[in-house]
């Protein structure tokens, strides 16, 4: 008799937790309503110098709560387009107002020397795709990764990356590095949280307490893969127009990405 009671209590606890989570997430969604409008913005047909390319990648097969996370489409397309508005307004880069989606299957990626990848903590790159990513980098491409947190996602991230990039270590970027000064001086950086952290008393997810600006450098020491770990620039771009998202995070996210793009175009 004791065993059924224990099972019942456990089920009740789980249901309660899910209910509470869904209710909390529902509240966040009410404050940050999804907008999946995919209408191309004006000027997107124009041929330009710079395109914001988002990487489409295969997901890792996960179970439990991890199965609910991770996709190349996270924040897409609003984050990209909203960021591009800022890039066009704040710099002299002739950028296309609409993102492009690339993958590591076709060779189209080689026409887009800057590529952004979201949630790489859940990617699962086959060997051939990892190899192509390395070829992209070796030719001079630049990869910016964003929105993955904690030990578990880091392990998944490096598991795919190390298939082709294990010859050199991932390192923390020093404050003096040009990437933090190419346009904006970003010495005083803070952790940029996702909206899941609303109301932002806490800015980290899982055990990713400390934000890390890391990099994989090429043989010449140039940053080739800029790794934004334990932070969520994508949410900051996506919700920069939302008063519920703190301006200081959005501002830093814009500045960071602008610096990264300018760095990619000059190094």
């Amino acid at each position, binding site marked *: 008799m004791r065993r059924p009671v224990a099972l019942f209590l456990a089920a009740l606890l789980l249901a309660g937790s899910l209910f509470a989570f869904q209710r909390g997430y529902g509240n966040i969604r009410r404050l940050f309503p999804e907008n999946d409008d995919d209408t191309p913005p004006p000027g997107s047909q124009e041929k330009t*110098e710079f395109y914001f390319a988002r990487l489409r990648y295969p997901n890792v097969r996960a179970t439990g709560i991890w199965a609910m996370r991770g996709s190349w489409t996270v924040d897409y397309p609003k984050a990209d387009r909203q960021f591009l508005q800022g890039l066009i307004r704040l*710099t002299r*880069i002739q950028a296309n107002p609409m993102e492009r989606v690339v993958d590591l299957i076709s060779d189209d990626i*080689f026409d887009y*020397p800057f590529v952004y990848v979201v949630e790489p903590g859940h990617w699962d790159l086959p060997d051939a795709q990892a190899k192509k990513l390395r070829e992209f980098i070796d030719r001079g491409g630049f990869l910016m990764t964003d929105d993955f947190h904690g030990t578990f996602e880091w392990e998944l991230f490096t598991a795919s990356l190390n298939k082709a990039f294990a010859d050199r270590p991932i390192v923390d970027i020093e404050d003096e590095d040009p990437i933090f000064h190419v346009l904006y001086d970003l010495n005083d950086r803070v952790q940029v949280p996702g909206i899941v952290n609303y109301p932002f008393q806490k800015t980290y997810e899982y055990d990713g307490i400390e934000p890390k600006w890391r990099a994989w450098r090429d043989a*010449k020491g140039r940053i080739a893969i800029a790794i934004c770990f334990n932070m969520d620039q994508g949410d900051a771009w996506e919700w920069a127009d939302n008063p519920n998202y703190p301006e200081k995070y959005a501002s830093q996210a814009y500045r960071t990405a602008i610096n990264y793009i300018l760095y990619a175009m*000059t190094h």
Partner: protein
Amino acid sequence: MFEFLFNYPLAVYRKGTLVFSSGWPAALLLLGLAALAAAVFWLFLRRGGLPARRRLALGALEWSVLALLLLLLWQPALSVTVLKPQQNVVAVAFDTSQSMALEERYRQARSLFEDRLAKDLQKRFPIRIYQAGEVPARIEQLPAEPSAQRTDLGAALRQIASESSMMPVGAVVLLTDGADNGGNLGPDTIQALRRARIPVHAIGFGSERIASDIEILDADLPARALPSSRLMLTATLRQSGFRGKTAKLSVRDGDRVLAQKEVRLPADGETWRETLALNAGAAGVKTLDIGVQPLDGETNTRNNRVERLVDVRDRKPRILYFEGEPRWEMKFIRRAVEEDAQLDLASIVRTTENRFYRQGIRSPQELERGFPSTVEELFAFQALIIGNVEAGYFTPVQQNLICEFAGRRGGGVLFLGGRSALSDGGWQRSPVAEILPVTLADRKGAFRREPATVELTRAGAESLLLRLEEDPEKNAARWKALPYLADYHMTGEPKPGATVLAEAIPGVRLRHPLLVTQNYGRGRVALLATGGTWRWQMAQDARDQSHETFWQQLLRWLAGGVEERVTLMTTRQTYSGEEPAVLRAEVRDQNYLPAPGAVVSVHLLGPGGVSDTIELQPARGEPGVYEAQWRAPRPGPYLAEATAREGTEELGRDTVTFRREDGTREFFRTEQNRELLERLAAQTGGRYYRPDNAQDLVKEIELSEAGITVRETRPVWNAPAAFLLLAGLKTAEWLVRRRWGAI
């Protein structure tokens, strides 16, 4: 035969003037001829029996006979100026250079002179013999063998001309193969001979085309280069006797072969060029040996190789790249340059409306206000790249500085295509349009973000700038296989003097100049009408070096040859024997204007511990140019370093290398230079002779107008030709009359 018929050689007729010894007036002769004509024709035309045309013909023959008799009565003669016997010297200039040893030319010349000419000449003239070798000199006896390491016909003739003021020189007899390499046979020498009215009679020895020989006529290599630069050797060759065969052309540095190729030999006597790309290698002064492997049966193998000095300098020219907005082209240009240890690239890019991002700067203050506005700041660079930026961004002062950078500084300027560049940036209306190698079309929208492939022009295929592969055919194929450009810019027509090296081809029957170069003032300017070569890097295997090689070569060309404030040079790379080296220095002040008040000293180092210091003197009429001559005491390579000072300030330094080579020139261009000898003789009133007709020479010399002369009248009325003509006319008349039945 001529002399038998006409009493005298043809030269007497050429030089003499017609006179009548009878002393009767020439007008009376004309009157008599006219009267005879009237009488004869009146008589003949009156007669009947024959058609009028035949009567006219017989009348003409009859009149000719009578007219000739009348003419002879007037005693025609020739008045000529002749040398007074034994009172005029005949100078005999003998080529005693080593090339006369070929084909037994010297033996033949000596035999002709000693066995025949000398005897004939000495009957009428005293003879003085001169040698036309390295140093002209009068000699009493001919040397046994020709051993002079140089042929200086000009110097010998000048000496004879100058001695003519002290003694009567009637003529010069020059026995030579005409292979002059002394460099003194110019207008000055000809003028000196003409002033003294001394005819030069040249007797040419040797074949006008050597039977079996391959010769390197010239080898052109840059005298200075950056380490690891690709150099282009252009060898000019000539061959005879080996048509259709192959020979190996090579460049060596000591025992190391730097480059070589098989060349197919063209038609006999044809001069042709071969190019060979090679790597300059590490820094240092190098003596490169350029040679063609001798073929079996070659008569002269010493003209199969030449040496050239190349000063490979370990320096790092600086390039300033200004970009109006961030773009991929800049990133990849920077990356290509970073692979090249000999190039130093500083760049400025406008990241926002009021911010720059600087790279490659040497101090935090350098270029902090953007594009330089002063000579001091801009002229510190050797080359300049103007990227995607509108002309209006630059102040008028800066625009003029860009022009002066090429024209006065002698720097290299490269313009790139882009949406705000060239005509889309209004450059056609700026003063900078003057230095561009194309005439920009006055229109917007010339920049297209459309793919375009690249095709090399003929000049581009030959140029080192676009050499991705050593072999020209492989190079062309590699260019053909390159990925398309991301964009192109329609420019306008190339200017006269500009060279289009490559064209962009955006579609069928569409082509636009892509890479155009030209010299401007002291500098050079290039236009690359695209901002999309970065695709050559991103769209090809990471190991492919096309993009890097292209940019490194283009920028080395742009910045590598740029001269600094002091430039030392020699008129030639190789001097022969005692010939002095001519050193010239161009000195400029801080503004790169000629510095006429400088003190320029040159320190020279040579083989065997040779060390000397000389001061160059200002060149007349050339402000800022200083020059001096210096004799290298022994054969071998020499290094000269010039230091220019103005007061206590050092304006700059420069070095140059040259060689003294003894004797080698005598083995090049060894065939008889008949053209030179004929020209020399014609310009001085003499004649060219072959050895087999040189016996006419003595009679020709008699008629010289130089020296002590006398006027002679020589009758010609008694020449056999006159009587033969008379007899011939009468015989003709008799035959005609018989045929027409008029006897």
